[in-house]
């Protein structure tokens, strides 16, 4: 069977992407719990399997064996649609991510745009889930999630716009290809393209944390105030699917940061580039996301919005203007 033929590759990449998303969701929970444990001077999960490695399987079995409750007062249609709306766009976005030069589900020219298009659907899922639950905590959480997402989508898109301007393409594989060679060719160190490159990486990373509802920006799911936010009424695998969607979004956000700023599948020393480098960078970044979550306390909601509207958006626009000015100057001389 020819693996490169169109329908076969479509099916293979679809199955592989779903498996990758599910596996990541399962084992990132383990990483999260183990990391939290060690940061808080505990051991973390240790009973199931060596180092608690089989814990995700036990969790999955538990979630699947639970009854899927649909409480009496909820909007039954929206309540059931919401988890799907969170997970499916995330899986769609995986299709365009280049793990290596050839290992990519679909190498389309508009890859970056596609990821942002489907990422914007994610918040609709949280919104519908929260509103459909008819629970005051869930509704507050839905309102917070939406205003947070609107606030952080703006600086993120403006930062990405400046990257697109310097690389002249929306094709993710092409963006990675332009960063070939030693690590100072990575976009984050390309001060000759834009003076504020490291700053824009920082802004992108902060926006990514906020868009994926991670601490210190997890206002939508603030346990101490809102129980479990939009997911309060969900039980069993309904909750599990939301969780998978959340971790899939973290993986996509980190993958995007790696592709746009850290050279994707390029080796830092210009030899033996491949998917292993992509995965090393990806998991290092994901680990830093976990690390940040267990290090910093949750911000206040007005602090969150102020950070975006008063600090990140001006920085993003200054960066955009500076980058275009620098491009113009390069053309003049």
């Amino acid at each position, binding site marked *: 069977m020819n693996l490169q033929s169109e329908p076969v590759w479509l099916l293979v990449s679809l199955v592989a992407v779903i498996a990758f998303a599910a596996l990541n969701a399962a084992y990132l929970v383990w990483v999260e719990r183990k990391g939290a444990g060690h940061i808080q001077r505990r051991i973390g999960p240790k009973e199931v399997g060596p180092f608690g490695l089989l814990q995700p399987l036990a969790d999955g079995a538990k979630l699947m064996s639970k009854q899927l409750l649909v409480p009496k007062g909820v*909007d039954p*249609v*929206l309540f059931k*649609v919401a988890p799907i709306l969170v997970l499916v766009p995330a899986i769609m976005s995986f299709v365009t991510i280049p793990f290596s030069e050839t290992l990519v589900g679909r190498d*389309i*020219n*508009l890859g970056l*745009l*596609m990821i*942002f*298009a*489907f*990422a*914007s*659907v994610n*918040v*609709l899922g949280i*919104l*519908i889930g929260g*509103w*459909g639950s*008819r629970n005051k905590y869930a*509704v507050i959480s*839905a*309102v917070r999630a*939406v*205003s947070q*997402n*609107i606030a952080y*989508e703006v600086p993120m898109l403006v930062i990405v716009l400046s990257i697109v301007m310097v690389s002249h393409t*929306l094709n993710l594989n092409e963006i990675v290809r332009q960063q070939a060679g030693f690590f100072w060719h990575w976009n984050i160190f390309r001060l000759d393209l834009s003076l504020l490159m490291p700053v824009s990486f920082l802004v992108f990373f902060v926006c990514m944390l906020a868009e994926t509802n991670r601490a210190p920006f997890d206002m939508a799911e603030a346990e101490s105030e809102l129980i479990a936010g939009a997911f309060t009424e969900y039980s069993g695998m309904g909750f599990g699917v939301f969780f998978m969607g959340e971790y899939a979004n973290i993986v996509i956000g980190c993958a995007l940061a790696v592709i746009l700023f850290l050279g994707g599948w390029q080796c830092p020393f210009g030899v033996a580039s491949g998917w292993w480098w992509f995965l090393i960078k990806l998991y290092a970044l994901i680990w830093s996301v976990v690390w940040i979550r267990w290090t910093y306390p949750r911000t206040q909601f007005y602090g969150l919005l102020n950070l975006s509207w008063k600090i990140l958006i001006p920085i993003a626009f200054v960066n955009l203007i500076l980058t275009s000015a620098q491009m113009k100057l390069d053309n003049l001389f």
Partner: protein
Amino acid sequence: MIPLTLADVIYWFNALFTAEGLAGVVFLCMMATVVAGAVFAVTSARLIRSVTGLALCFIGVAGIYYFLNSPFVALMEILIYVGAVCITISFAIMLAEPRQEDQGGRKNAMLWPMSAGAAVLLFWGLTMLAGKAQWPAIPTRINNGSLEDVGISLLTTYSMVFELISLVLLVAIIGSIVLARAGRSKT
């Protein structure tokens, strides 16, 4: 009733599994998504459900754009209409609609006859339009519809339109800031 022989069935089955046949199936799926979303949006009593239907409708429209070989417009449709417009609408609903249950509105005795009349008139008008109108020829493909072509024509052929749209957006932004500041000084 059309007499259906086995040969007919086999013919249609074979026709289905050609490139055109499968493309037709995909197209019909997109149309079904659009129509289902639109019907859901119009018939549901709760506004938030209507927004969900609208989002479904937009996704179907994006699918049709993709089917017509314009992936850029399709993705923009999802990014702007599903990701921004629908979310803004639902945000407005959340701020403005505290009560969920009583959405009936006043029942009017003339409602049914009037809406039936309007539907018949609309149907008649559309039928006349479809039958009598002088349809322009199918436009030839101008370019690939790729990002480069869209960008170039936006900044050359349609630069005036492009500038005017940005002016409209600027006016909208300034207007919303003016409204928001007025609200702040009142309280």
